[in-house]
């Protein structure tokens, strides 16, 4: 009997302790290994720079690696929500993994902030996606920058090659729709796998329609292969890439074949060269300096900024959610979701976020600039 009482008392104390020290638990799923590692590693480095207290509450981060694998990402999301009871999920790095995690977020009613690019993660808005937000620019914003540049330079026929996964498909849909609206014909459409060792067949097909420009929709270093193959096969025209290649490993792998490549990027990539009047310059530079102080000069990339902006959004939304409920409950998660949806004109490293019930990204044209690879480095197009 005595033992039982002691146990009960201990149990009571334990509960008291947890409620008194309510902390905000953030679950992070990212691809620190596998094909998307060059995106996931800067994200992981950034997570350690995120705020450790928001609105007076302690914030703890639980980081799990999904090895760039969709199944593992879902498993991790489930573990975080069910076992760890996190208040919000940040992740994952890749679009296929994030799309698959939407179901877990909706099922457990946990807000989720994705660091992946595909517009389909948050649109079209439905009952599940109302729990999901994302920080990277939509393919659509990036695609419109590319298409703007194309039509300004008299490109009429474009060949498209993209990853044979959700990233490539998402880009194709966006790109084709916007291109046709501007009177640009997508003359060839091919796919390749990130792990492919040869894309000669696709390259020939792309060139056989005699395009004015080629657009490669891939991310990371695998995206260098089509470009190298096209140049080897004697293609001389302009090549556009997506912001998915904007890291230094891409420059290293692609070498001189990437000279002249055109791509849209988030302002963080070019933070130092932006004119002072640019609305994102100050907030982007703040991130760049913090990241480079921790990881060395020149180490910053756009991908880490997506993780940073997830932190920025939380910092903006958590205080208003805390007004009504304590973290660690379903009510808090719902309040946090509503607060995230209500974020207005918040400056992150990627752009200015203004969310609404229909728009869970909230970025506009201030969130990208066109750049060119010149002399083996990135330079801002005027």
């Amino acid at each position, binding site marked *: 009997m005595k033992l039982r009482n002691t146990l009960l008392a201990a149990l009571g104390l334990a509960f008291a302790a947890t409620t008194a020290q309510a902390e905000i638990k953030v679950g992070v799923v990212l691809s620190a290994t596998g*094909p998307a590692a060059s995106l996931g590693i800067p994200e992981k480095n950034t997570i350690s720079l995120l705020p450790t207290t928001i609105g007076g509450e302690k914030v703890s981060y639980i980081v799990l690696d999904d090895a760039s694998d969709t199944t593992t990402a879902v498993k991790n999301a489930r573990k975080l929500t069910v076992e760890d009871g996190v208040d919000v999920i940040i992740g994952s790095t890749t679009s296929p993994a994030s799309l698959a995690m939407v179901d877990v977020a909706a099922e457990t009613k946990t807000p989720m902030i994705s660091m992946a690019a595909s517009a389909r993660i948050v649109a079209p808005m439905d009952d599940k996606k109302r729990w999901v937000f994302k920080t990277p620019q939509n393919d659509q914003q990036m695609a419109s920058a590319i298409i703007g540049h194309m039509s300004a330079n008299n490109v009429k026929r474009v060949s498209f*090659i993209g990853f044979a996964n959700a990233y490539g498909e998402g880009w194709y849909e966006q790109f084709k729709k916007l291109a046709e609206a501007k009177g640009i014909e997508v003359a060839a459409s091919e796919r390749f796998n990130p792990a*492919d060792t*040869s894309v000669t*067949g696709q390259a*020939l097909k792309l060139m056989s329609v005699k395009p004015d420009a080629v657009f490669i929709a891939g991310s990371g270093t*695998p995206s260098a292969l089509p470009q190298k193959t096209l140049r080897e096969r004697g293609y001389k025209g302009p090549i556009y890439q997506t912001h998915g290649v904007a890291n230094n490993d891409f420059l290293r792998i692609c070498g001189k074949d990437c000279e002249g490549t055109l791509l849209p990027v988030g302002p963080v990539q070019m933070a130092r060269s932006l004119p002072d009047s640019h609305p994102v310059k100050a907030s982007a530079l703040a991130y760049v300096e913090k990241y480079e102080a921790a990881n060395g000069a020149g180490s910053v990339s756009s991908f880490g900024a997506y993780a940073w902006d997830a932190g920025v959004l939380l910092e903006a939304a958590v205080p208003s959610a805390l007004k009504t409920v304590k973290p660690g409950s379903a009510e808090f998660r719902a309040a946090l979701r509503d607060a995230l949806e209500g974020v207005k004109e918040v400056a992150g490293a990627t752009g200015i976020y203004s969310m609404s019930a229909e728009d869970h990204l909230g970025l506009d044209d201030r969130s990208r600039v066109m750049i060119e690879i010149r002399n083996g480095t990135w330079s801002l197009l005027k």
Partner: protein
Amino acid sequence: MDMSIALILSQDGITNGAIYALLALALVLVFAVTRVIFIQQGEFVAYGALTLAMMQSGVLPATVWMLVVMGALVTALDGGLALKAGQGRRAAGVAGWNLGYPLALAAALGGLAVDELPLAVQVLLTLAIVVPMGPMMYRLMYQPIASAPVLVLLIVSVALHIAMVGLGLLFFGAEGQRTPAFSEFSLELGPLMVSAQTLWVLVVSALLIVGLYQFFGRTLYGKALRATAINRVGAQLMGISPTLAGKLTFFLAAFIGALSGVLIAPITTIYYDTGFLIGLKGFVAAIIGGLASYPLAAVGALAVGLLEAFASFWASAYKEVIVFTLIIPVLLWRSLTSHHVEEEE
């Protein structure tokens, strides 16, 4: 599609097919002699390519430490056995080869400015690091269970494959590498632009195939391997050591794998896990040869390479599906035409 496109695709397909052919030959060889399905063949490709890339960027390749560790384990096992049997000189020999050699290699690599050496020397050093891992792997993992059923050996291979991919990530990092071409020279033949690297791949593959043919037909060791492949027990009764046959086979397989890696590293970006897919395509080819026939496996490899090239032109989104679906009609045809032998339990 016109003639020139077909020619370029064929060239691409044959280049890839040549690599698949080498891997398929190694797979058939390993299976015939030791009954091991050598899944980690692809990892040797990646290790070869990435070890070379690390040397070229002036870093001491971490694979050399893996060699030292494996060598130390072999020394502990074999040297211990020899000492127990009172064969001091044999123990010294074991230690010399398995411990002295890797350490000497590590010391040499540490002392040299490896990134300034000529490419040929770098390639030789790469082979000197990666190839001995083959026989050591046989000694450590397969020799103790040499008579186990095929399934057990397969499971060990899967485990080793996963371990090697993980170690590859640790050694080489997550990012891909490309090495500079052996030479910048290229040849224009009508619509074809044949780069020197393509010629290297084709010539080395052809030489290797001829070399293996001669080895198996003319030399005592080659004949010993063939004998073991045909009848293990019979060969053993004739005085052929199955252990020696196993080590020799793994030596050849590791050599073929590492050499393939070195050959393709300038053509494509190699990641720590690229080897698996290349190895799988070699495996499809080996299956076409029924895991027994070398010529059929080589033909199969070329077919896989060509199919892949043309599929990437016509239906790029379904390329892998097409290549790997090939295995179903092949298995169907093989099971209908060949007569099945139950494996002895």
